[in-house]
């Protein structure tokens, strides 16, 4: 497995594909610590986003771990932890 990292730009792209973007949200701004609710994404949007991340990065993340990540920084952390353990194993 490639030693790949899940970046904020990956997240921005996948969020847009999975769930679109609210007009009043600047997804390209500094959003690392902005809550997903503030960014206009509900739990279903995050579920769809998570499924797409799993498909693209070849990992499996429990639904609870996905939906408990309240900010992009937390989700990056969750995904990258999974990526690290996947490449270590």
């Amino acid at each position, binding site marked *: 497995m490639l030693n790949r990292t899940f970046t904020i730009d990956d997240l921005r792209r996948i969020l847009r594909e999975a769930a679109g973007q609210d007009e009043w949200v600047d997804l390209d701004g500094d959003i690392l610590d902005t809550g997903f609710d503030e960014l206009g994404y509900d739990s*279903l*949007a995050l*579920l769809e986003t998570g499924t797409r991340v799993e498909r693209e990065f070849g990992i499996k993340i429990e639904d609870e771990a996905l939906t408990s990540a309240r900010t992009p920084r937390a989700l990056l952390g969750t995904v990258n932890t999974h990526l690290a353990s996947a490449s270590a194993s």
Partner: protein
Amino acid sequence: MTARVVVTGLGVTAPNGLGAADYWSATLLGKSGVGRITRFDPAGYPARLAGEIQDFVGADHLPSRLIPQTDRMTQLALVAADWALVDAGVVPAELPEFSAGVVTASSSGGFEFGQGELQNLWRKGGQYVSAYQAFAWFYAVNSGQVSIRHGLRGASGVVVSDQAGGLDAVAHACRQIRRGSALVVAGGMDASICPWGWAAQLASGRLSRSDEPDRAYLPFDARAGGFVPAEGGALLILEEAGAARARGARTVYGEIAGYGATFDPRPGLGREPGLRRAIELALTDAGLEPDGVDVVFADAAAVPELDRIEAAAITAVFGPRGVPVTAPKTMTGRLCSGAAALDLAAALLSIRDGLIPPTLNVSPAPEYRLDLVTGQPRPAALRTALVLARGYGGFSSAMVVRAPASASASEETTEDNRCSTGPSPSTT
């Protein structure tokens, strides 16, 4: 509790026109939206014509946030609701929180979306099925999405009775207004011109197999051989008449004056189908005698047996050639749950303009003894219109619309002239 229900806004998406103004001018010009299917290759199917809405791209009208989670029928419904609210001059955010709701009819749900996700499931696996499949295919999704978009949190719902649904939804909205809702967005919208939706429609055995758009859908014609399905519909803004007046509604298209719905007897009993009784119930509800109806918008199945039943019901109530009858849906095809809602819009616009739109392409069979309006729009002083709709499986509904009170000032308004929409738990 009595309530007169008026229509104060129209949102139309039809194969021959996007927006009420475009639809209506196309309809008066006899412009058809029926053609060979373009949304998939119909070559291998026994029916190949449909009324498709061309040039509608949901993303042109709606936020990107809504696109991945919506079927085409929901995108059409969201846009029609936007237009209807603008037409009515209503700003939903200014309404009391639970005073306004949404009632739509649906025939199939989001078939095109559902087909795509089923294909993902069998070709790629469960990981590739959209999370939004959870609701995007629901019958109730149009009501839900319109409610969420505009914060319309009052009594809402969905009715499923095929083509009769467009009237049944408006009747249910009238009930909600009688129970205290200030405003309801109501009507029907369907769009299932995709292989899965097409297979489901073919199962009825009632689709036209013609490849000629001007000979494919000929209700009340000796050549009738089935109908052309279509996509689209209409959403109406319904308000209690006093509330509409109090907020200074700029347009009152007319009043929902009466409604009747019946269910056909079980096949094989030899009993009369329910349509005539639905008409009589609607007239009674509106406080009208048959001679008080100025025009009938027919269900127009274009299946000979069903045409015969409808013509018999109309002539039983109104007499042979006793009332002008028309079917502007010959220009759109049959829109499932959207059809009767669109006919309500057409009926109200007919009353406004004093013009009955024509039935396109049809040479009326004399045996039906109908005064069918064909060729050109017919000028007429119209104060009332009766809209008929039948749904597959035995549903028959009839609804009377009446000119707005200002246009019929000489008429004494009585409690009998309200939209009572039949017995309900709140009526004692």
